[in-house]
């Protein structure tokens, strides 16, 4: 909106979320017609160190990452990986094709240039299940944390608090999230800052995972575990924590005065497993408990 006001209708806007965040979204320094955004700081000969990658120690933004032994990673390599291969591998496996979009049969002239038919029995395509080998042993790739704060529509300070809370818990810099559209009966307007999100990978992810499984989850009262029905069928598992559960994180618990209000959050654990049940097997090796019956599996039919 800001951009349209400043430049009139002649500027093409490439993304709506940029407008929502109140930034121009294109270069306001002339020439403004570049289709690819150019970081003009990088063209300057004054600070050549800034053009080096951030992993280079000469770059002022360099931060060391491997500061200690990564015991979660070592546990995975030394103990989990070989067991997972043994569990998952089946004799005489072949690639099982997923549901794909289908060709039209050509019975009508209107079938020409028509988008492909939906897959049989499904609205979306599903992935192929490839044979299990030592090259595709599932592992945890990332943890996405999303903290949507409903109260932030009335008091935007709550959104800032959620940012700080996420930073304290994870140790990485979170990103604010904004409402994308107007939702009238929620009284939410597009552009409202509504919480925080963070993506954890590598060492911070391993650190977070061990805090979660060793400190937080065991202390939640009557915690049953992650639902066995959770999952997006492609090997990613989702679960959530309530505002009270978040209080068990040591960073928040040791500083109770600072946190009169905490916020619940949703987690999405992204794994390279091909199915949800493989992902659950992987996650249970890291100490995440599961409860309930799986989709389409009756517990009395499982033979051990």
């Amino acid at each position, binding site marked *: 909106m800001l951009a349209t006001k400043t430049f009139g209708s002649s500027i093409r806007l490439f993304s709506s979320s940029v407008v929502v965040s109140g930034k121009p979204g294109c270069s306001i320094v002339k020439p403004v017609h570049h289709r690819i955004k150019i970081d003009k700081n990088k063209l300057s000969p004054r600070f050549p160190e800034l053009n080096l990658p951030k992993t280079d120690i000469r770059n002022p933004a360099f931060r060391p990452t491997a500061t200690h032994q990564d015991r979660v990673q070592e546990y995975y390599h030394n*103990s989990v990986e070989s*067991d997972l291969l*043994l569990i998952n591998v089946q004799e005489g496996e072949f690639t099982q094709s997923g549901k794909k979009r289908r060709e039209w049969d050509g019975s009508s002239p209107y079938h020409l240039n028509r988008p492909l038919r939906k897959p049989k029995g499904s609205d979306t395509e599903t992935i192929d299940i490839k044979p299990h080998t030592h090259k595709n042993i599932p592992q945890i790739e990332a943890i996405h944390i999303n903290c949507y704060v409903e109260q932030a529509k009335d008091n935007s300070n709550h959104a800032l608090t959620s940012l700080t809370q996420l930073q304290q818990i994870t140790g990485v810099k979170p990103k604010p999230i904004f409402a994308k559209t107007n939702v009238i009966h929620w009284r939410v307007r597009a552009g409202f800052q509504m919480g925080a999100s963070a993506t954890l990978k590598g060492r911070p992810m391993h650190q977070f995972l061990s805090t979660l499984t060793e400190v937080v989850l065991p202390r939640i009262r009557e915690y049953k575990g992650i639902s066995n029905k959770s999952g997006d069928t492609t090997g990613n598992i989702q679960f959530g924590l309530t505002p009270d559960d978040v209080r068990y994180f040591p960073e928040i618990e040791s500083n109770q005065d600072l946190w009169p209000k905490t916020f619940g959050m949703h987690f999405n654990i992204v794994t390279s497993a091909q199915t949800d049940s493989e992902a659950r097997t992987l996650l249970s090796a890291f100490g995440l408990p599961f409860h309930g019956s799986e989709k389409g599996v009756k517990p009395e039919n499982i033979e051990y």
Partner: protein
Amino acid sequence: MIVLKRCLSTASNVKSSSQIPLNSIKSALLLVRQPIVTPDLTKFEEVYYNYQEELERRLMWTFPQYYYFKKGSLSERRFVKAQKGPVSKQPGVFFQKGIPDIVHNRERRSKQEIIIPKEEYDESSSMSDFNRPVVPNSRITEADKTNNVKSLERKLPRTLHLLIKDEKLGWKLPSFELSEKDKLLHRNAEAGMRNLGGESINTWTVSRKPTAVLKYLSNKLVDSKENSEGLVREFIIKSHILSGEFSPKDIEYAWLTKEEIKDKVSKEYYEATEFLFSRV
């Protein structure tokens, strides 16, 4: 007539079950004790991590004291009292290590050392148990000192494997003859192990699929491609010991690491089974 096919059973259906003698199939057990503590670091790793950590501390932002301690509170006073504080710049004074550059009570040229105030620990009071100093246990246990290979508490950073001594074949993985025709291999291995070492053991079998197969011809290990008559096949099932103890009555056994296994078993046996044992 309905033919029931046992798709998941590990016994192969090359011949009909009546043709294969029951004593030609055995299920062996690879019973593993996982490492209990983190692996030992090499000298290089230790130095590298130490350097990176010091570097990180050097590049760290100044500790936001105002965020964690409310101004004028008791906890703030206690925290400030515990800090050493940098040497401040004085006019007309020569500083041997360079002129101090202090912002927010931090010497910017070096890392910031934060000292967390600790209440004094009083052994008599039960309330102060929270302040008990953390003293890590030794990574070297009693069993390591006495080289007790029968103890599960030896070599904490390493994976241990159970080996037993057979009268005819020497040191090897425990193996059990198939007791019934319809018994699954992993069940047979579990039952055999409990028969041997008592019921007070808690194990988790990784998979009903065997990890490897060893072939014997008249009590001698033969090549895995051998396919002659009268072979005895040993299917190795992997399992983890979670708790309890393996305490057999009249049999020699040992919990060993990979290197120790190499010294104990015969050369052919080690070559055939080497890949099963964990390097860590």
